[in-house]
């Protein structure tokens, strides 16, 4: 079943077109990796889907419903959550407060989230500003889970994390995949992206240059799409 259908989406930063006519579907339970160079429009695309950035044209349909004009907090209520670039935790709130402030009815409650991510338990009463990068990313993903999303968008999953922290975050993502959560990940690390995702979408200058199953994707094809040496239809 198609959970998210993006059709002819455009988004701008002032006069700059960041997303230019992007169309793709995401099925329920699927994990999609969004790749592309810096400035390709990945972050803007995710933010536009989440309602944090205005669309300049096109349609975003979620569970068959057109999201046009819906502010971000209403999309969260519908089940779309974005883990933003740079984690963006509330620095003066404790980990516990960061989690509970996002809480919504559903299977993910403070206890179930902590069971899934036990390493957050000892940090509960620490202000978010005092966490390490890996701890912050874990908290940010956990915070988004607290909203009980059907569709979880994660921007820059591993950026700025130590290798060990990256392993831990990907363990979490594997857990979520196992639980049937639909995921769209922005990831610079190609190896990681191909390992976890079922499908890969590559953006270049705001357009999709590659959309293919992760399995059997050759590095050459990805590199072509990434740098645009040859346009794949």
């Amino acid at each position, binding site marked *: 079943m198609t959970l998210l259908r993006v059709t002819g989406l455009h988004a701008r930063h002032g006069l700059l077109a960041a997303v230019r006519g992007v169309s793709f579907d995401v099925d329920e339970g699927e994990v999609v990796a969004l790749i592309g160079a810096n400035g390709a429009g990945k972050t803007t695309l995710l933010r536009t889907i989440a309602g944090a950035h205005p669309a300049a044209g096109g349609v975003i349909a979620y569970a068959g419903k057109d999201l046009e004009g819906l502010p*971000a*907090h209403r999309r969260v209520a519908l089940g779309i959550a974005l883990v933003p670039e740079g984690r963006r935790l509330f620095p003066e709130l404790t980990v516990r407060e960061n989690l509970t402030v*996002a*809480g919504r009815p559903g299977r993910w409650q403070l206890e179930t989230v902590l069971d899934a991510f036990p390493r957050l338990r000892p940090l509960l009463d620490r202000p978010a500003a005092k966490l390490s990068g890996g701890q912050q990313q874990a908290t940010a993903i956990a915070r988004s889970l607290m909203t009980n999303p059907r569709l979880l968008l994660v921007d820059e999953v591993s950026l700025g994390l130590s290798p060990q922290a990256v392993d831990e975050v990907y363990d979490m993502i594997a857990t979520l995949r196992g639980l049937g959560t639909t995921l769209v990940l922005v990831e610079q690390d190609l190896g990681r992206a191909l390992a976890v995702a079922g499908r890969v979408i590559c953006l270049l200058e705001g357009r999709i240059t590659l959309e293919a199953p992760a399995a059997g994707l050759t590095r050459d094809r990805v590199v072509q799409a990434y740098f645009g040496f040859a346009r794949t239809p």
Partner: protein
Amino acid sequence: MTWVNAILQGIFLGGLYALFACGLSLIFGVMRIINLAHGDLAVLGAFLVWSVTVTAGADPFVALLPVLPVMLVLGYLLHRTVLARSLRGGPLTPLLTTFGLAIVIQNGLLQAYSPDVRSLGGAAGGLATGSWRLTDQLSVSYLGLLVLVVAVLVLGGLHLLLRRTRFGREMRATAQDPDTAALVGIPAQSVYAKATAIAVATATLAGVFLAVRSTFDASSGPTQLIFAFEAVVIGGLGSIWGTLTGGIVLGVAQTLGATVDPQYSILAGHLVFLAVLASPRGRAVIR
């Protein structure tokens, strides 16, 4: 002994200033704007209470009961109509619009109620005038103590609201990062509107206590805004209990100044404020 009494009275006066200040501080803390109409909204509340008192012959504190919900709604609508739009206009716009609003409210009150100076003290009966005499020169007025107790309760209530409730967490999260708050499902505008409603309600409470304690007229608002602001800065921005300390320091400065010469009362408060601003502490407070 007169000095001791001055300090005592200053502490009570400080309770009133803290009550004025907490709404200003709340809006600043959550939305990063200073509502220049804060004092005028307080005076508007006092006038509404005055109207109810006169028409229904009620005690001012009874008259406050129907007025408080009205002011809560007014605060909510104030955000939904003017402030929400102002916030989108950049950092200066809220200042410009709230100052414009202050002019409108002041002159609206002038038109509706005439420039006469009034007091709710008479209507409040023994509460406004009674006191315990501790010694010949030292007395504790019922009203002064009541204001201080109410101020502590309101500030304490706000503290608990912010620390212990879901809405409090939402306010703090929105204050720190409104964009991300929206991404975890917090409707920032609704949080702002509710915070404004609470701030206007506390201002009304303060306005009524001012009106019972002394006098008020259509142009009393700006002075109260200034005192509230001074209390907030002296106490340290964003700290709830600091607001109480700030109010008391300001109140004591004014009563001590008045002991020297009544003309020095308000000036003494301004000078303490400017001194705090000039001190290294002031530098830390302002960021």
